[in-house]
């Protein structure tokens, strides 16, 4: 089982490589990838250096080009695919059928992975993508239970990658428009959920308010911990009650079920967080490397170490973590 770690810039890539990642995933500095934030991602010089650094240490590099291209700007996506292929990366992570079609035709020897944004949650969907684009891996959305993941792995010949740690997307990725409903920009169209330019933080006599596109997502008393505001983690009135109507501000941590993930035949486990810091990547990669190695040595005896959970808790967004949809009770 491969450990796939995020890198929003060159120092993060080096941190992931140095601390035990089997693969690092990165993106270009534009809206062709789903972590399109100012100051983040790679230009050509940085990619070249990153690929060399990783390959010298036998670590793979994947490039995510996983947003949906519209006719205006289409060439940005095809150029991104050409550039990624030109840098000799180990795989390109794609979501859009049109871009997949282009990549498969133009670069038949480059490995293509179906991004989590590709929204494939069953063997028929994966089979369709495999038949037409020859995908070599699928990243499945964070909506399946672990038994569903295990079943899926038995039903497809495409290796399956899952999210193991980081932010928890509770909607089927690639088919969530909540962000654009409030801000006009979504992960699909712009490459970011809740784009920072549309987020407001206000201190008011009623409390601290967070807004997206002018819509009030949360109003909390001063001093309450505040995560990054997304619509799905906001607090609203529903049926007369004030509550987190969609999901609490939790993040995903699957360390507790690592032996089951391994037993299910998961090919790769992905850490979320290209928008986070070098410190985050260092700490999380180190813990997960140690955990995966320990679990592989003796899955029966595997118990997450207290120290690992302490380290992960320090870098988690929000105050709670959850196993999320992998546990059926979450549903």
């Amino acid at each position, binding site marked *: 089982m491969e450990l796939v770690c995020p890198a929003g810039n060159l120092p993060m890539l080096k941190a992931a490589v140095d601390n035990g990642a089997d693969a690092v995933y990165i993106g270009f500095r534009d809206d062709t990838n789903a972590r399109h934030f100012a100051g983040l991602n790679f230009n050509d010089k940085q990619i070249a250096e990153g690929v060399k650094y990783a390959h010298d240490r036998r670590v793979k590099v994947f490039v995510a080009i996983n947003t*949906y*291209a*519209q*006719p*205006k700007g*289409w060439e940005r996506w095809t150029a991104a695919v050409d550039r990624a292929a030109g840098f000799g990366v180990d795989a390109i992570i794609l*979501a*859009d*059928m*049109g871009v997949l*079609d*282009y990549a498969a035709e133009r670069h038949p020897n480059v490995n293509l992975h179906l991004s989590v944004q*590709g*929204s*494939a*949650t*069953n063997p*028929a*969907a994966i*089979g*369709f*993508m495999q*038949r037409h684009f020859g995908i070599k891996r699928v990243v499945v959305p964070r*909506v*399946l*239970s672990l038994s*569903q993941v295990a*079943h899926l792995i038995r039903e497809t010949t495409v290796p399956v990658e899952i999210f193991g740690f980081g932010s928890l997307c*509770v*909607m*089927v990725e*690639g*088919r*969530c*428009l*909540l962000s*654009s*409903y*409030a*801000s*006009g920009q979504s992960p*699909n*169209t712009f490459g970011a959920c809740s784009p920072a330019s549309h987020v407001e933080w206000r201190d008011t006599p009623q409390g601290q308010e967070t807004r997206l*596109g002018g*819509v*009030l*997502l949360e*109003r909390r008393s001063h001093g309450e911990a505040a995560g990054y505001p997304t619509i799905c983690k906001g*607090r*609203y*009135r*529903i*049926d007369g009650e*004030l509550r987190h*109507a*969609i999901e609490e501000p939790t993040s995903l941590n699957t360390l507790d079920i690592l032996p089951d993930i391994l037993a299910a035949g998961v090919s790769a486990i992905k850490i979320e967080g290209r928008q986070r810091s070098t410190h985050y990547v260092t700490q999380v990669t180190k813990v997960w490397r140690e955990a995966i190695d320990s679990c592989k040595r003796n899955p029966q005896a595997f118990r997450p170490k207290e120290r690992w959970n302490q380290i992960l808790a320090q870098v988690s967004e929000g105050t709670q973590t959850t196993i999320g949809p992998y546990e*059926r*009770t*979450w*549903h």
Partner: protein
Amino acid sequence: MSALNNSAHRPRLSLGPILYLWPREQVFDFYAELLETPVDVVYLGETICSKRRQLKPEDYWELAERVTAAGKQAVISTLALIESDGELKTLKRICADERFMIEAGDLAALDFLEGRPFVAGHSINLYNHRTLAFLAERGLKRWVMPVELGRATASDLLQRRPEGVECELFAFGRLPLAYSARCFTAYNRGLGKDNCEFCCGDYPDGVLVTTQEGQEFLSLNGIQTQSAGTHNLLPALDEVRALGVDLLRISPQSKHTADVVRTFADCLTGDLDPAEGTARLRDWAPSGLCDGYWTGDSGYKFGMPV
């Protein structure tokens, strides 16, 4: 034909699938009423939750026969999110029936429908001309544009669409915004999805979600999240005609759907002014109207000049 010469073009009206859990009787009554309206295409089927089984595929096929007998086109719509084996088997069975056109809601349906005529629903991510061409080679006859895309992309895609492929726009209704594994209706009633007691049946237009300052914002419909605002493209009718859009979809709501269809139809024939039509529609939208997506703005905004 250039876009400007196309102003006489009259899009047809379609009725989207019922997105909510309504009692069986109500569903049959609803279609009996709607078949009397000037709607041209009727989409039928469960697209949200496989646990809702008041109507089986056989019931939808029976309704589809009635739709056909009424001189309209029947299309069978499929689930937007396919996870389990059971869902996949039902989907396969629906797709194997070749009497009616099928609307694909998930990539899985594309797998089963390849090589025969089909419709790509708005939950299939079709954002560009290359995807359009790719699917057209595999049998695509019509696509419903993802709802977050507006007139700019519609225009680009319509100019580059393959021969014989129709474009449908989601023109009226609460916007389908997201799908999850969690049933939010059950979650907010303190129930799990496996033990949901079909509580979504208590909310014929979804559960309203209001912000802490009273803005009616979202509507929860089982695993689906919708907008609270009702999307309305009536003010854009002239643009829609000029672009050559083929169909306008009206998404069923528990009240006034037939009135909505007639209002759109009257505006299409020129018997009613779109501004006056929109004024009527406002009264029938549970949380007001929105149209931001069409102009490239936030989806919840309203303010297209009529």
